[in-house]
């Protein structure tokens, strides 16, 4: 299995109550609260798809859509 790569954060704004749990526990500081106190993915490029925001969201408002990156066998491995 290849590494997971983020496609999209789906955050249901009408379900989000702005508790800030996802923002507080995100290991990569991807999420933040906007001016309406709703969670938004401000730095999606930093996301490592750990899904802790999705699992800890009390409002079931966060969903991570990821794709499995293809393992490129033909290319020589890095390092």
């Amino acid at each position, binding site marked *: 299995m290849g590494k997971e790569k983020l496609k999209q954060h789906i955050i249901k704004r009408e379900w989000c109550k702005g508790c800030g749990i996802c923002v507080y*526990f995100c290991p990569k500081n991807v999420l933040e609260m906007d001016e309406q106190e709703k969670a938004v993915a401000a730095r999606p490029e930093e996301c490592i798809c750990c899904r802790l925001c999705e*699992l800890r969201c009390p409002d079931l408002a966060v969903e991570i859509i990821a794709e499995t990156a293809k393992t490129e066998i033909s290319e020589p491995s890095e390092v």
Partner: protein
Amino acid sequence: MAIKDYIRERFFPHMWCAGCGHGIVLNGLLRAIDELSMSKNEIVMVSGIGCSSRISGYVDFHTLHTLHGRALAFATGVKMSLPALNVIVPMGDGDALAIGGNHFIHAARRNIDMTAIIMNNRVYGMTGGQYSPLSGYGTRATTSPYLNIDHDFDVAELSKAAGASFVARTTTYHVQQMKDILKAAILHEGFSVVEILSQCPTYFGRKNKQGGPAEMMEWFKNNTTPIGSKAKQENPNLIERGIFVQKEIPEYCSEYEKVIERAKSR
């Protein structure tokens, strides 16, 4: 199925406060059920009264929202009439251990096959933040402004002593562990008790100056430890989490089936 297929989306956003741990329990439970690939039609969720018990309204299983503290009694009736069903009984700490204390210990003693989830937020949230039997000595609630003098139950020890054949504890911080424990508890044949420490930022957190929901979850992280860890030996105040008991003993419905057989063969 995705977890949204297991909920009644028309009732969302749910009625729990912002940051309430009960939503995280719902989240974890749905993921456990999803990973077990269970059909919605084989699950019955029976709940009593309280913030926690509102969970039965949000899941698209067979659901019963019953009397305060009596969820296990109703659940026993459901299970005895149709033992093939998977019965899940989410309760609050007050619902399970104050009002429903007797139902709780006797369901455990009988070892009837169901999963009792105690969503322990240490307070009666729905009625205004009164202290519960799990608030603990020295805590504050709206009814204990000069500190609570009641000692709390240790749910794991109580369940063990009452005879439950599966006893576990986790928290809303430890979401992966919560999902794994719930899966094991649902699969276990017998009375399973899962205590999940859950945060009530509105009452318990505010009255006890524990900060917001994230800080309360941080507290769970810093004040719990896996069962039998070295940290526990060094600091006995840490709360242990994990599976305390998992044993095979005769299950009530299958034993009752044998009674019927014995009576018929006379």
